[in-house]
């Protein structure tokens, strides 16, 4: 009897938790009929926000992958003094409140900031431009990619890298022909998480880039701006983000099934072997 009761508690808690997580999302779609939802998306605000979001996130994620991949490979495969510190620094934006990150970016790259003078002489303005959005997204989303990439590279079988070296491939060729393909599954999963975090970016962006329609106003910022003006528009934009993020989550979940590799899988969500 006791065991039954215990199982009952587990089931009730799970149902309660899942309902709590899903109910708000369902409410979004119940609030706006599909027809009106699509109509709202044709508004200038929505289209501008969508374009700004896509452009800035594409560039930011490109930068994250370009800089983050070699950085993660170094941190994963070399042992050196200060490595633990470097990894901690990579993770810093994870725990930093986004508003503080925005403030810090402003203090570094803003007109009156640390490098403001340098940028001024070069005739470049960073704060409150698209560049600022890109930097804000890159700042807060990068740890999600780099952490996952480090784990993916660390899981590589060292003899495979050694074998590549003895077969005449230098460190560079070994990276591109062995390490990268074998870690790709983990890298894609990490990138998907980073994209999800970047799309939802709000705090750092509004501090550092402001919310100017067509320039720096991303979907998240547009939702906030529309919240006071037209609740239905805000809800429609929210629905768009929900759909996009759900698609990303599914991508991450399905990636292992796409790649043929039967080798180690680095997977941030479910480490269970059965799935």
């Amino acid at each position, binding site marked *: 009897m006791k065991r039954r009761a215990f199982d009952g508690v587990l089931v009730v808690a799970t149902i309660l938790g899942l309902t709590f997580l899903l109910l708000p999302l369902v409410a979004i779609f119940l609030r706006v009929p599909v027809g009106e939802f699509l109509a709202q998306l044709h508004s200038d605000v929505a289209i501008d926000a969508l374009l700004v979001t896509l452009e800035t996130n594409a560039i930011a994620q490109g930068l994250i992958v370009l800089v983050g991949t070699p950085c993660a490979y170094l941190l994963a495969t070399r042992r050196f003094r200060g490595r633990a510190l470097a990894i901690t620094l990579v993770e810093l934006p994870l725990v930093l409140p986004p508003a503080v990150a925005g403030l810090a970016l402003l203090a570094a790259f803003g007109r009156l900031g640390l490098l403001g003078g340098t940028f001024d002489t070069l005739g470049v303005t960073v704060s409150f431009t698209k560049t600022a959005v890109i930097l804000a997204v890159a700042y807060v989303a990068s740890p999600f990619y780099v952490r996952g990439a480090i784990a993916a590279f660390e899981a590589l079988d060292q003899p495979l890298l050694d*074998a590549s070296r003895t077969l005449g491939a230098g460190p560079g060729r070994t990276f591109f022909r062995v390490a990268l393909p074998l870690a790709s599954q983990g890298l894609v999963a990490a990138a998907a998480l980073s994209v999800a975090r970047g799309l939802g970016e709000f705090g750092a962006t509004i501090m550092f880039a402001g919310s100017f329609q067509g320039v720096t106003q991303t979907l998240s910022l547009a939702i906030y701006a529309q919240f006071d003006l037209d609740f239905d528009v805000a809800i429609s934009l929210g629905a768009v983000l929900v759909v996009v993020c759900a698609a990303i989550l599914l991508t991450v979940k399905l990636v292992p099934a796409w790649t043929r590799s039967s080798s180690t899988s680095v997977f941030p969500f479910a480490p269970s072997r059965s799935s």
Partner: protein
Amino acid sequence: MDSLELDIRLPLRSFALELTLAVGRETFALVGPSGAGKTSALRAVAGLARPASGRIVLGGRVLFDADRGVDVPPEERGVGFVFQDYALFPHMTVEQNVAYGGRARAGELLERFGIAALAKARPGQLSGGERQRVGLARALAREPGVLLLDEPLSALDPHTRAGLRIELGEILDDLDLPVLLVTHDFHDATVLADRVAALVDGLVLQTGTASELIAAPADAFVASFTGANVLAGHARRAPDGLTEIALAGGGFVYSVDDAEGEVEVAVYPWDVSIAREAPDDSALNHVRGPITSLVTVGNRARVQVGGLVGEVTTASAERLGLREGDVVTVSFKAAATRLVERTTPAR
């Protein structure tokens, strides 16, 4: 000039590997228990581990020289390495694996090792023996100056192991290359290698052919590693030119080897004969006791009496009707009773 010469000192976790070797166009085996530093020796030759001091020369070309600051990177050493679990690239086909090191000879090697039919297969689909052949073909594709094999048979199950040991031996015989292999199995070394070095805690205890090691093991460790029964005892010279050893476990045995004081007695199982009654033969040493275990392996039976294991044919065992618990007499000649030094811990 096709030879590998090394004289290195490589500090490991709890001891240092100190190795001086010259391997010509032959198969040389480093044999020793796990953790003896065998793999580290191969890694040093391949450039994957850096010795603290010493030199490595392959075919007259200096690969490593600590004094002159020479350390050729692994990709330029021209060393073929077959890793313990073969380390085949799982994301490439068999053909791509073999061609990774050198495209020119890939097709020929696939044919030679009988894996051409598997060219498009991935390593995950191969059997242990097929993987080994792919690993060998891949390591040879770059026309290396030396072939290194790390525990080439340990990834295989016992059933396929025996067959592949012979197959690998034939492949290695056909190679016109220095081959350095490491194994923890002395039997693998006897089949595969021309010369053997017993390595313990980073130090070579004895070098020679497998039969030399068996005929005159340098110490108790080598004796036991090569398969001998090793019994502790106290030796004193007997009047008739023999040595009498009082065994620590009780009883006396005689040896033709000259020794005095604390010794280890080494007797190989195949030098031991077994009888129901004390035989009236030329053997000087007789130990009587009950059979504590009787294991049949192929056409041979391993009979254990006290601390001694004897090996007889299954036919003999059946003729004598041996069973566990039967009291028998174990005999061996004084000439087959080798006295060896007690192995002193290296450090």
